[in-house]
């Protein structure tokens, strides 16, 4: 389970467009570098990241090695109803991560 910092408002007005920010602790190994034993460090990047809101996928990102280590993503959602916001991701090794936050819409 990868570490992450997730920032979003917990309470917004209906119809408001709000910002979500996620910083995931992950090396995003490109597969081009060698370790100190001069063996290639295998490529391992987060290759799929999805945000669901009220059970529906609202954003999907497919990163490659082109995103920096400890990837940072910032995006927006329009608030409709109160409910759970979930972000899930998986890397090349199959390791998963997630954050969950309840959004209150007034």
């Amino acid at each position: 389970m990868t570490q992450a910092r997730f920032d979003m408002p917990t309470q917004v007005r209906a119809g408001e467009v709000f910002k979500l920010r996620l910083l995931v602790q992950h090396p995003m190994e490109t597969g081009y570098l060698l370790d100190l034993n001069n063996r290639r460090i295998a490529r391992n990047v987060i290759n799929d990241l999805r945000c669901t809101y009220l059970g529906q996928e609202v954003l999907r990102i497919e990163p490659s090695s082109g995103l920096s280590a400890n990837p940072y993503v910032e995006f927006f959602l329009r608030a409709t109803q109160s409910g759970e916001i979930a972000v899930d991701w998986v890397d090349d090794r199959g390791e998963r991560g997630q954050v969950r936050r309840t959004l209150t819409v007034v």
Partner: protein
Amino acid sequence: MAAGVTWALGGLPPAQAQGMVSGKLLGLREMLDPIVAGALVVRTGVHIETVILADNGLSVPFRVWVDSPMTAQDHVTHLWLLSQRNPVTVMAKLHLGPHMGRAEFSTRLRLAGGQQLVALARLSSGEFRYELADLIVTEAGCVDGS
């Protein structure tokens, strides 16, 4: 994120390709065609905010937004961040939808040297729009560029 400069839609001199940096520099069509398959691409309505000058390419702040009402009838469906020089051209592919309210995305890129970056958007109408940014990553070395 460090303060950036919003790029105007003016022409900018391309990043000088010094022979040392990895890979070859792709042309614009080489970057776009695998995705748009020859369809019309218009340079309008897409905006990039990033640094002009990066001291190294490991973590370069990048913001892109597309003019769009993001309604069910008219929204951005996909965004591609493309690199002219990286070993992997598609740095990220995004699937967006009207729930987002705003077609805007910020991240930090990893760049293999100075180059042009392209943000390519696909609208729900099927139309493609793009913008490009020229970025300098100051090279550190006495490399034989010949």
